[in-house]
C-alpha cells in the first residue's frame, strides 16, 4: 500500500521559483540594510531560508492524512498559544505578536497558526464530503476560523487575521456555497463594518482613512503610504539600481527590509523588475494550484488550495499596501521579507503542498 517516496517527486519547478524569490529578497535585504545597525540581516535571511528548507523536508515523510487526524489537538494548542502570546508575549512595535524564544528570536505564533487554519479547513470540508455546503456547516467552520482570527486581531494584527479569512473564504468557495448564502454573508459583513470599526484601534482606523487619501495626513498615518508610493514611483521604468534607492537607503521608506521590501525593490528595479517579480509570484501560485488539481482526493486539494489562498492573500495585502491599493496592515511578503517566522511558515506551507504532491499516486 505504501509506495516508496522519492525526493525526485517533489515540485522542483516550484522550489526553484521560490528560491529565486528568496534570492531576490536576500539581495534586497542586503541593499537596504547596508551600513545600518541591521547590516547582517541578509546572511541571517540565508540561514532562515536554509532552515526553512529543512523544515519543509521534515514535513514530507508523515502523511498529511495523519496531520489532519491531529487537527483538533493542533487547533486547541494554537488557541492556547495565541492566548499565551496575549499574556506573556513581549511588546514590540506596540503589538504583542511574539513569544521570546531566547537568542533574540521571537516566535510569531500567528504565523504558524496559518498552517493549522489550512489543515482545519481541509479536515472540516473533507469530513463533510458534500458538494454543496450547508449554511449551518458554513457558519460552524467560520466560527472555528474566526476565533483565532479574533485573537490575532486583538494583538493587534489585522493583516494576519485577514489571511485566515482568505483561507476560509477560498475553502468555503471550493466546497460550494449557494449564492443565497453568499448574499447573506455579504449582508452580514456589511453589518459588521460599523461594529468592526468600533473595535479597531485608532491607528488602524487612521490607516484605513489614510489609505483612501494619504495626502490628508501626510505626516501622520499617511506618511508610510506616501513614502512607499514615492519610492515606487521614483523607480520609474528601470529603477535606480541596487543600493541606489534613496528612499530606502535614507530611511524615508519605513521598515524597508520587512513589510515595505517590495517598495524598496520597486524603487531599485523599476516597473520591469516589478512585473518580473510578480510574474514569479504568479507562476508560484499557479504551480500550487496545479498541485491542488493533481491531488489524489479532496483533503489534499483543500490543503494545496489553502496554501495558494494563504500566499495569494499575503501577496495581495502586502503588495497592494505598498502600492497604496490596500490599507496599511503590516504583514510580510512571503519569501522576500526579512524574518524567520514568515520564511519558516512559508516553507512549511510548501512542505504541505509537496506532502500532497508526493502522495498523488498513492492510495
Amino acid at each position, binding site marked *: 500500500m505504501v509506495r516508496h517516496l522519492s525526493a525526485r517527486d517533489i515540485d522542483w519547478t516550484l522550489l526553484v521559483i521560490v528560491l529565486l524569490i528568496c534570492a531576490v529578497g536576500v539581495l534586497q535585504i542586503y541593499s537596504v540594510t547596508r551600513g545600518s545597525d541591521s547590516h547582517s540581516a541578509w546572511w541571517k535571511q540565508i540561514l532562515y531560508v536554509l532552515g526553512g528548507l529543512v523544515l519543509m523536508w521534515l514535513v514530507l515523510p508523515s502523511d498529511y492524512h495523519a496531520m489532519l487526524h491531529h487537527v483538533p489537538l493542533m487547533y486547541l494548542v494554537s488557541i492556547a498559544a495565541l492566548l499565551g502570546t496575549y499574556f506573556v508575549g513581549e511588546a514590540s512595535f506596540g503589538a504583542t505578536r511574539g513569544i521570546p524564544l531566547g537568542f533574540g528570536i521571537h516566535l510569531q505564533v500567528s504565523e504558524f497558526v496559518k498552517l493549522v487554519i489550512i489543515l482545519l479547513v481541509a479536515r472540516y470540508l473533507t469530513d463533510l464530503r458534500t458538494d454543496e455546503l450547508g449554511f449551518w456547516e458554513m457558519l460552524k467552520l467560520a466560527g472555528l476560523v474566526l476565533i483565532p482570527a479574533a485573537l490575532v486581531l486583538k494583538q493587534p494584527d489585522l493583516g494576519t487575521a485577514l489571511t485566515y479569512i482568505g483561507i476560509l473564504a477560498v475553502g468555503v468557495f471550493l466546497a460550494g456555497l449557494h449564492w443565497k448564502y453568499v448574499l447573506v454573508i455579504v449582508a452580514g459583513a456589511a453589518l459588521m463594518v460599523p461594529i468592526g470599526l468600533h473595535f479597531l484601534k485608532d491607528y488602524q482606523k487612521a490607516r484605513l482613512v489614510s489609505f483612501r487619501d494619504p495626502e490628508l495626513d501626510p505626516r501622520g498615518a499617511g506618511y508610510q503610504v506616501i513614502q512607499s508610493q514615492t519610492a515606487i*514611483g521614483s523607480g520609474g521604468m528601470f529603477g535606480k539600481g541596487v543600493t541606489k534607492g534613496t528612499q530606502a537607503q535614507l530611511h524615508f521608506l519605513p521598515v524597508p527590509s520587512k513589510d515595505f521590501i517590495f517598495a524598496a525593490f520597486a524603487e531599485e528595479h523599476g516597473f520591469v523588475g516589478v512585473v518580473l517579480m510578480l510574474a514569479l509570484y504568479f507562476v508560484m501560485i499557479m504551480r500550487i494550484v496545479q498541485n491542488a488539481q493533481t491531488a489524489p482526493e479532496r483533503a489534499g486539494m483543500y490543503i494545496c*488550495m489553502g496554501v495558494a489562498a494563504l500566499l495569494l492573500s499575503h501577496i495581495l495585502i502586502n503588495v497592494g499596501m505598498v502600492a497604496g491599493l490596500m490599507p496599511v496592515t503590516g504583514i510580510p511578503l512571503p519569501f522576500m521579507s526579512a524574518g524567520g517566522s514568515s520564511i519558516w511558515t512559508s516553507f512549511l506551507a510548501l512542505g504541505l503542498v509537496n506532502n500532497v504532491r508526493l502522495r498523488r499516486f498513492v492510495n
Partner: protein
Amino acid sequence: MTLPPTDPNSANLSSERPHLHDDTRFAAPKIAIFQYATVILFLFLISGFWRLQVENPDRYKERAEQNRFKSMPILAPRGRILDRDGRVIVDNHASFTLILTRENLKEEHLKPIAEGLDLDLGDLQEIVRRYRTRPKYEFIRLKEEMTPADLAFVDSHRDFFPELEITEAQHRLYPQNGAMAHVLGYTGGISLQELDTPDFAKYKPGDVIGKFGVERQYNDTLMGIDGQRQVEVDSRGQIRAEDKATLKPSVPGKDLQLTIDLDLQMVAELAMDGRNGAVVALDPRTGEVLAMVSRPTFDPNKFAAHISARDLKELNDNPDKPFFNRAIQAAQAPGSTFKPIMALAALQSGTIDENFTVHCPGGANFYGRYYRCHLKTGHGAVALHKGIVQSCDTYFYTIGNKMGIDDIAQYADMVGYGHTTGIDLPHEAQGVVPSPGWAIHTQGRKWYAGETISVSIGQGALTVTPIEMARAVAGIAMGGVWHRPRVGKEQPDNPTEWPLNPQFVKDVVDGMYGVVNEGGTGGRAWLPNIEVCGKTGTAQVASAEYVKAKGGGHELKDNAWFVGFAPRSAPEILVVALFEHGAEGPLAAPIVRDVLTAYFDKKTRIETLRQQAAAVAAGEAAVRTLGLPGPGRSN
C-alpha cells in the same frame, strides 16, 4: 491537454471509486475561477505599479528629491559698526541658533521641546500657529545664543525631534553699560507686523534686522544676504552628503563707519553718568556728529539674544523711558540758550543795533504784568554784549517785545527750530516754534501778547530738541551755514545757507565768549588756552506757581542746558548738553567742558605725534642725504 482530467492517474482513481464522492472533479470549475481571479488580482496589482512608475514617475522622482535634498541657510554676518577713526564699536561673535524646521514639525513635539529648552509653551504654539500660512520651507528661529545645556539637549534628542536644527550665527556685541545704545540701536528677528509693512516686504520671516538706531537706519548696508547650501539628508534629518555645486555662499554685510569719535563719546557718557538728559557733540564745519548720549539708557546686548518678556516689560514700563533718545526726541524749552538767537534776530531784522540799551531794575512791566529778571537786584544798563553775558531777561523781554512774535518765529524757523534736522537716525522728533498762526491751528485760541515776552527768553510754548539746538547754534557760529547733522560717515551734507551780517554774528559770538570768559553764567565751561563760547539755559518745566503748589519735586525741577563751541574764531566742535531737572543752567556747563577738553587734548596729542613723526622723517631724510647709517636702526 483538456481539463479534466489533467492527471490520468486521478482519472483512474475516480473511475475505480466513483461513489466515494472523494474525487476532486467537483472543484475543477471553481479552481479555474480561482485561477482567473488570481490573474485579475495580479493585473490589478500591476496596474497600481503602472500608475506610479510608468504614468507619473517624474512626480514621484521629484518627491524623492525633495525628501532627500534640503537647503540649509548660511547666515550672512552683519557688517560691523566703526567709529570715525575706524575703531570697532559693534562687532559680531559666533553663537549657535536653534532652528525649528516646519517640514518635519510634529505638533505633539512642541511640549517636550519647550520643556527641554526652557521655552514658554504658549509662546511657542503661538509662533507656530502664526507661521501656519507661510510656505513650509520657511523655518522658525527658536532660540539664539544657545547654552551648552541647550546644545546637549538637541544633540541627544536628534532622533526624537528631527525638526530641530542648529546653525551657527553671528551675534552683535555692543559696548557695555548701554553706552551709545541710542545711536547704535539693536537688532532682532523681524516681527510679523513688520513683514506686513512695505519697508520690510523684501525680508522673510526669521531674518534678523535692525530695530532701532543706526542698526535700523543702515540696515540695508549692514545686513548681508544669506547663502544656501544643498545637503542630502536621511529621514532623521542627519546630513549624509553636501552638494558643492549648488552652494550659494552668503554675502556678508558691509561695515558702517560713523562720524562718532569713540574718545569723545566715552567722555560724554561718563559726564552724563547718573544724570538724565542728553549730550550732542558735532563738528559745526560739517555737521558730523562726534558724540551723542542719551540717559537713562538700556543694554542692547540683551536684545542680541532673545530678550525675555520680563526684561522688555521692565524697560517699557520705566517712567524714565530708557528707549527714548533724548538727543533727538526730547523737545524741551531752550530757556536762555535761545537768547543768542534772539540777539541775532533783533540785529538782523534791524529792530536794534548793538548800542541799544535797556535799563534792568530786576524786571519790567509788559501788558499789565510784571516780568522778573533772574537777577532780582537788576543788571542796570544793559546793551547787547552784557545782555548775553549776564543773560539779562529784561533786555530780551524788551527786544522781543520790540521785534514781535512774527519776526521771532521767522528767525527761529530760519535756524531750524520747529523742524527735524534730517539726522540719519530713526524717530527724530521736532520742537515747536509758537506763533499766532500756531496758536489758532493747534490750540484753537488766539495769541496772547504776554506769550511773546516768554518766548523771548526761550520759555512759553517754544521747545527744541538737543540736536536742533546743536545744528542751530553751529550754523550761527559758522556765520550762516547750517549743515545736516549726521552719524553716517558717507552721508550727503545738503547745507542750508542764509546771508548773515558777519558783524552781527561776531557780536553774538563775542557775547557767548563773554558768557564763559568774562564772568558770565557759563564760567564753568572755561578752558585754559581755548576760546570757548557758550550759553547757559535754565528752562522751567512748569510755571513757578504750579511748582509751588505741588511742593517742588524732582520731576518739576528746571532743566539745565548748555551749548558751547570752540575755538571762537574758527569753531571746530560744538557741544549741547541737556541735564534734565538739573535745576540750573550752569550745572550743564561742566558736561560740555569735559567733552571740549577731551576734543582739544586729543587734537594736541595727535598734533604732537605728527610733529614728532615729521621730525623723525626730517632727521632720516637728512641722514640719507649725508649718506650716513641711520641712527639706532641697525638692529
